[in-house]
């Protein structure tokens, strides 16, 4: 354990490694993955350390096999995870839909790269729609968490596994190539690991009735009842699990909104503007689903404008508009396919809004 920090001293890690270490410390018992850039360090880290801890690591033959292995692992009641990057996450959508339908907890990490298609390996946030609106077939959502630093990526894993178990649902941790690849110092503090009773798990039917893991319900009305149950769960998640960070919003005339790696650049811009006495605020959604609508609905808040900045051509901005409900203008600036909005470009866009 010493090479991986003692929980007190600061060590230097990439985001990919921090996510892997966070997962291990959060009690991940099973990991399956398939090589794809820019998340390969995560898989390699798991290959090195999971067997040492008596846990299972498998390099799968495909992304499909990996996510379906996670399905099997989760069905036995253990904490299980897979990771990939955008094209690989498209392949995993089948399995994520089945996880949602069978009400199995699992954690899926997407270190996003440029798309569509094979795209490139530059950082991107263009998978926001896919992550937050379902992705696979059927009426379901995954909880989506978007950390903005290496240290937060590490901590997020404790939250991700706990949410997955609490709600029996897939949880996606959404990062980008920048977060995955950059190194930052962090302290590997042990986060909370709650035990969840999993009476539904497949363990062999000794002393109980057989358990069945299924999402197929052919009898009239049964699938609709399951869907209503899922919707009830999603409503509860929307009420209880909104997460965001905000800065200087109270007196702001313009609030900048960004998530993940993009939020780092935007936050710097906001700090600079405040230093110049401009009334600029900042909101960083951390849970992308459920989207933190509460951050945008403040009774008595005087007129304000929003500027949403993304490494995409406008995805999260749609959720901001829905949250704002036309009570304030919402502007957008974004680049993707390798382009990262710079502080100068953001300031230029702000200038056009005043």
């Amino acid at each position, binding site marked *: 354990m010493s090479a991986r920090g003692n929980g007190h001293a600061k060590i230097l890690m990439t985001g990919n490694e921090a996510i892997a270490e966070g997962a291990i410390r959060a009690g991940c018992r099973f990991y399956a993955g398939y090589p794809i850039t820019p998340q390969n360090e995560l898989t390699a880290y798991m290959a090195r350390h999971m067997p040492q801890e008596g846990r299972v690591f498998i390099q799968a033959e495909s992304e499909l096999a990996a996510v379906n292995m996670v399905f*099997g692992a989760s069905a036995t009641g253990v904490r299980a995870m897979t990771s990939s990057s955008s094209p690989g996450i498209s392949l995993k959508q089948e399995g994520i839909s089945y996880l949602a339908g069978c009400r199995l907890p699992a954690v899926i990490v997407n270190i996003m790269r440029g798309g569509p298609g094979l795209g490139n390996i530059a950082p991107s946030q263009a998978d926001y729609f896919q992550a937050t609106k379902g992705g696979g077939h059927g009426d379901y959502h995954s909880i989506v968490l978007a950390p903005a630093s290496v240290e937060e990526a590490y901590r997020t894993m404790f939250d991700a596994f706990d949410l997955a178990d609490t709600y029996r649902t897939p949880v996606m941790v959404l990062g980008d190539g920048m977060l995955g690849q950059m190194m930052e110092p962090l302290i590997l503090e042990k986060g909370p690991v709650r035990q969840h009773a999993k009476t539904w798990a497949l363990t062999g039917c000794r002393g109980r009735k057989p358990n069945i893991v299924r999402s*197929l319900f052919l009898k009239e009305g049964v699938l609709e009842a399951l869907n209503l149950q899922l919707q009830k769960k999603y409503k509860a998640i929307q009420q209880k699990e909104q997460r965001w960070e905000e800065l200087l919003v109270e007196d702001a005339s313009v609030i900048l909104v960004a998530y993940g790696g993009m939020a780092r650049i935007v936050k710097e811009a906001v700090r600079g503007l405040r230093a110049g006495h401009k009334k600029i605020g900042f909101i960083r959604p951390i849970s992308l689903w459920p989207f933190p609508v509460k951050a945008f609905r403040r009774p008595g808040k005087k007129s304000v404008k929003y500027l949403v900045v993304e490494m995409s051509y406008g995805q999260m901005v749609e959720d901001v508009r829905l949250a704002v409900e036309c009570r304030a203008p919402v502007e957008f600036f974004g680049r993707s396919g390798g382009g990262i909005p710079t502080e100068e470009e953001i300031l230029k866009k702000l200038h056009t809004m005043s």
Partner: protein
Amino acid sequence: MEKIYSRPRSLRENPTHYCPGCGHGIAHKLVAQVVDELDIREKVIAIAPVGCAVIAYDYWDFDCSEAAHGRALAVATAIKRLRPENVVFTYQGDGDLAAIGTNETIHAANRGENLTVIFINNAVYGMTGGQMAPTTLLGQKTATTPRGRVAQEGLPLKISELLAGLGGVKYVERVSMHAPAEVLKAKRALTQAFQNQIDGVGFSLVEILSPCPTYWGKSPQKSAEWIRDVMIKEFPLGRIK
């Protein structure tokens, strides 16, 4: 009077949804009998396929999981790795195991996963309405080969022979449901395939030639004869490895 035959404990009292003359009912019963005889009902975790046997868990009385079409062996791999003390098997049709799931099948076999695989080959997709399967015979008419399968549509895929060539595979046998004596041989093969897993031998597969009277357009009797006279020529019975 002594009771000498009854429904296996591992089989629920539900009537099956299978067509008259279908082989699935017999295959389910054989699996249940073998599970009873090996006294592993409380240890078994079964993976049902997508296909006609998708609701096999309505008939077996032990822990079961569904898997996405073709992914049964990926699901089974994880379960067995995490729970080596359990007995894990997949039950898959020809489309599931040898078309959409070929990748998962070959790689689980090549890793030598200590699993039992029951492979139902009825040379057709039953659930979806009788389309061409990877194992459909040349000349066989299906919904998607209305003039009979030709070579350009693929030769009947001998996945068992293909798998037997892999080092991780320890036991492969092809059996049939077309006659009572063959059914007994099938049961012996299933027993072997389960015993192998219990003994830690490794990847074991039993291919079962199984009638589909509905989509073969034949009576149950003629279907059994077609296996005996035609299908076996393409898919010879016996121990392959």
